């Protein structure tokens, strides 16, 4: 039996350094955060944000957001978010000096196995927010990285410069250019495999991409990890509202996205 668990997640108000639009759809929120929280953060983890009340809207439950960046040296915690409803609309009203109550870091991070030398990130839209810190970690570990970034329009491609600055090969696919369809994505990935550039896949969010990567993964015996989303209430494992089904052996199990995830084995995830 283990000893009494140590404190790993913190509830505290952080002050806003900036909160600016990145493009027509996404915003970047930068918070000033203490060093001892930032040094606990890992790629793939998230914070549970207590969105303020704004414009007559009163978001009640917290909202989960992936860590987009954590910089102990600058004392900064970054979130990249898309305004979709009451909570994120309220987040968008925050400005310099405002305080935001955060809870975290939470959840299981991405892992990079020792023999995964060539990593392939496949992301679309706001999924990039979740995968961006993984690029930093891969760079730190000296792994080679290919980032396949997909979006509706070239204007909505985010983080490509960031990935490039970390030494990643960036491949962009967009609906507007007709390059983002699954057939093309499959060709691109098969090309990487043929070139010996794919030891593991990392993805998040999209059902169609999950299915495709599972098929390719099975075909070539390539493992992977996926960051999943589910609506959350507590964010720390107490309420069991965030479960999703997974295949373990020949059984179906329900796991909590906030606790056993949000990062899961790509092959165990069940497409929805």
């Amino acid at each position, binding site marked *: *039996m283990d*000893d*009494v*668990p*140590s*404190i*790993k*997640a*913190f*509830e505290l108000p952080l002050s806003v350094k900036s909160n600016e639009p990145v493009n027509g759809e996404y915003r970047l929120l930068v918070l000033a955060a203490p060093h001892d929280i930032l040094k606990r953060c890992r790629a793939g983890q998230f914070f549970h944000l*207590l969105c303020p009340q704004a414009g007559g809207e*009163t*978001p*009640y*439950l*917290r909202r989960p957001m992936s860590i987009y960046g954590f910089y102990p040296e600058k004392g900064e915690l970054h979130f990249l978010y898309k305004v979709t409803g009451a909570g994120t609309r309220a987040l968008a009203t925050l400005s310099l000096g405002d305080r935001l*109550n955060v*809870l975290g870091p939470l959840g299981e991070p991405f892992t990079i196995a020792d023999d995964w030398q060539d990593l392939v990130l496949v992301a679309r839209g706001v999924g990039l927010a979740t995968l961006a810190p993984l690029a930093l970690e891969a760079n730190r570990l000296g792994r080679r990285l290919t980032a396949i970034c997909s979006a509706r329009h070239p204007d909505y491609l985010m983080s490509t410069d960031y990935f490039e600055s970390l030494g990643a090969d960036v491949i962009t696919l967009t609906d507007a250019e007709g390059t983002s369809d699954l057939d093309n994505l499959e060709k691109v990935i098969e090309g990487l495999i043929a070139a010996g550039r794919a030891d593991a896949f990392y993805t998040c969010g999209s059902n169609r991409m999950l299915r495709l990567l599972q098929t390719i993964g099975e075909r070539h015996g390539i493992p992977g990890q996926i960051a999943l989303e*589910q*609506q959350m*209430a*507590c*964010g*720390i*494992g*107490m*309420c*069991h*509202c965030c*479960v*999703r089904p997974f295949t373990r052996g020949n059984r179906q199990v*329900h796991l909590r996205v906030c*606790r056993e995830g949000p990062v899961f084995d790509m092959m165990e995830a069940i497409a929805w």
Partner: protein
Amino acid sequence: MVDLSVDISGLKLKNPIMPASGTFSEDLAEVFDLDRLGAHVTKTITRGWRDGNPTPRVCEVNGSMLNSIGIPSKGVGAFIEKVVPFYAHYETPLVVSISGNTADEFATLCSEVSVPGVAAIEVNISCPNIEEDGKAFAIRPSSTHDVMRKLRAATDLPLWAKLTPNTGETSEVARAAEEGGADALVVANTILSMAIDINTRRPKLGNLMGGLSGPSLKPIALRMAYQCARATKIPVIGCGGISTVEDVIEYLIAGASAVQVGTATFIHPTIMLSLIDGLEDWLSNQGLSSVKDLIGSVIDGEQDESVVFMEAAP
């Protein structure tokens, strides 16, 4: 120093603040020291393994929430093997919440969880009773009485009966639980509710209906706690919508000997600590030396001119 300790039919708690079943777990130990709480109350368990309800399992409604988690459970074996030893790390007493589909199944589970390390058993009689066509035991006095008698015979541990607001007979159900052998009443569980997405025209919960909890529930649960405290001689533990120290004080004045905090922990995981500290400060500012002085101090009889409306005078 203010004495925050309370006595729930012989079980001594160092303070009257504890979590509500289903809104607490071992996971919270990674956010604060669980030994600060008055008691630990587990999520309801069932005898066998259960999956719980379809997703989405929660939604928010006007500053409160609905849930239809169901009772996912790993079963009593896994509970005794894994969960009970975890709480043995703490001095705080462990209260285990249980539920069953029939009175006999309920009683069997009750004796199975009467193991060392468990200080009391909270019986969630707010869940569907298969023998009564799915109506919760605690909707009616008669089924409440019957199940409590079987539970009483099944254990020597203190029994807390958790009542439902989905009844029109609060006082009668409370008395039936007391007569059946309950040592305390937990008042109350969630109110059956519904929310619909007007764009998709689909209910917002996968299970169509769910339980309302959070601030909207408070006036109703507070009224019930007051009624139950008047109708019985056993301690009442207030539960429903508590998120501030004032809420705690209100429940205590209404007659509750302790309170459970549920949904508020989802919003502020450390809220129970603030409530303990805030209660101590408030009592001390009022010049009260013990929380017991507050319990049941509601002035609900003849108006006493000397205390009422002093501040309202021009």
